[in-house]
Structure formats: C-alpha cells, structure tokens
C-alpha cells in the first residue's frame, strides 16, 4: 500500500467520512468531525502510521489534508507514488 493510500485510509477512519466523499483538497471547515479532538486523533494516527510526531505548532497549523501531506513530505515521507 502506498503512503497516499495509507493516509487516505487513516483520514477516513479518523474523521468518519465515506470513502466516496474523500478528496485530498478537503479542508477542516468541510468536515464536521474535525474539531480539536479530531486533530488529536489524527496526530495519534499519523504517529502510528508514519512514525512522525507532530509538534503542537504543526498540529495547530493544519487546516487541510494537503497540509498534512506537505508537513510529512518535508520530513522525507514520500507521497509521489
């Protein structure tokens, strides 16, 4: 499974969204379950899946799925495949 597929599976689980509704350009405002607890849960899942622990500043700066990819890609996690 590619890192992109892993991330998609993770975000669907964290935010309880239907697979058919998933888009990489989804933002926090568009997802009902993306509140502060959603951010905590997402950070726990990212650490378990990719081994990267978001700093508090990073976690608070994330506003979209693309932001997650950008931070992880900057740490060397490849999402190109």
């Amino acid at each position: 499974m590619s890192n992109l597929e892993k991330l998609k599976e993770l975000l669907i689980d964290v935010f309880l969204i239907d697979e058919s509704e998933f888009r990489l350009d989804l933002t926090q405002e568009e997802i009902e379950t993306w509140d502060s607890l959603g951010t905590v849960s997402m950070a726990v899942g990212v650490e378990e899946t990719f081994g990267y622990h978001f700093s508090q500043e990073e976690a608070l700066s994330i506003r979209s799925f693309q932001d997650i990819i950008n931070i992880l890609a900057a740490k060397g996690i490849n999402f190109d495949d």
Partner: protein
Amino acid sequence: MTRPVVLSFDQLSQKSTTDTVVWTVSSIRKRVEERLPYPVVAPNEIPPGTRSLIAIGGGTLLDLAKAWRADNDPELELIAVPSLWGSGAETSPVVVLNVSGEKSIRMNERFLPDKIVFWTELCESIPEATARMACGDCWSHALEGFLSPLADDSLRIEVAGLLGRMLAVPVGNDPRWFALSGEACAAQAQSSVGLVHGIAHTLEWPLRTCQPEAGWGHAKLCSTFLWPVMEYNRQASDKWRLYMQQYDIDEQAVLAVIRHCYDKNAYAAALESLKQNWRAILRDQCTRTNSSLVRSASLEYFETWGFE
C-alpha cells in the same frame, strides 16, 4: 486547578444544623440519618436559607449536586462524600449526566466541590463484586489519564507515582481506595480518558435497557472493558510499553490487576451491544483521545480476541 479541602468525618458532623441539608441515596439513608444531625431532603431540593449541601452517594448523585450548585446557587457550599470509590466525582471538575438516555459531559472548575469527606465506614457494607468493579473504574481513570495523548511529562510522573501506590492496595473492599480514586480522577481531569470510557458512556444506556437485571453501570462497564482495551492499546502501538518503562511502572503487575477486574461473562454479555454501537463509540469524545487510534476495523479485535 484548586483541589477540594479534605475534612474528617468528625468535622463533617460539627456543622451548623440550621442551614445544612443532606442529599443521599436510599441504600444508605438510614445510616446517614443515624450518624449525622442534618435533615435529609430529596435530590434537587434545597430549602430557603440553606448555606451548605452535603451530598453523600455515588458518582451520579455527586455529579447531580455539582451541576445543581453551579447552575442554581454558586454561593452554596458543597461537601461531597462518596459512598463508593471509582467515579472520583468528588475531586473532578467534570459532570456526567444522563439526558434522555445519552451522556452529557460538562467540564468546568466551578463544578468542583468545596470540600470532601472520605467516610470510610460506608465501605463496610460494599459487596465484594461491587468493590472489584469500583477498583476497575479507578484503574481506568488512572491508566487512561496516564496514557492519554493530552498528558504531559509532569502529569505522567504524578500518575506513575499513583499507579505504584495503587498496586500496593489489593483489588477489593479496602477504604484506601477512596483517596486513591479521588487522586486518579483529579489527575485524569488534567488530560483525558480513552476508549474504555468511550465504550462505557455509549453502552451504559443500551445495556441497562436490554439487560435490566444485569446491573450494568459505569463501573461495571469500565471494569469489563479495561483489560481488553489495554491489550488493544498494547498491540496497536508501542507507547504502552514505552511509557511503562520510561516511568518505571511494573507492566506485568498492572496487567495482572486489570485482568483481575475483568469478568468474561460480562464481556460476552456486552459484545453484541458493542458491535451494534461501534460507530457511536468511534464518535465518542473519549474514544477520540484514546492513546492508540481506534478505527472502524478495530472492532474485529474485540470480536475475535479470546478474553478468558
């Protein structure tokens, strides 16, 4: 966070009898009336001129008193006297109320009681099975608070010390659990709880409805699911073991204790309800601060793992 002042039972019995009333539960009302000189009134009833309310009961009654005081008469002195350990309601700024079959959770420092009294005589009549479940509730607060992703290093150091002291007290009917439970709940309130509480909050009402004779309540649910959830956390992530090592906690001793709190028959009886309500459990705010991510597919772990 300011913690309530702890009074002795003698201090409790020396208050003014003219402006103090008691709320309590029916199972201990007779003893309360024999041992304290204050009128017992119905919960939600405060006569005019009352300045102090003594609430003596389990977590449900204490939370009711905390919410009533905060919403109706913030100047009223509130003294909380737990009749059983486990909920830790007497030291927590959280109130959990049943609203139309759903758990309503509110958190605010104004909910904290002013004073607490550990009336150890009350534990003389607690049945052993009830005491074991109350210990499971207490262990759930301590472990989920310790493992929470919202806990910081200083809190984990504090809770690690508490866990060590809890390991020294056997599971069962022992009045030392009153104080330990209060500490566990106060510590957990600084971080969060996790999947054990997500399950307990979600399943309590459905199980009480469909199995009314089984005695389902918060403590029984916490006690039943604590070991399975901790085993889930252990296999889902290496944090469990890392934290146990880092904070010098005897992992095997903890597992032995929480396994002792477990009841396989209760687990089997709750499993169908777990399956039916899994989606709601995933949405519960406690589940979302579990130490390991809880996924849709995580249900399979609880369906298939043989907790014997």
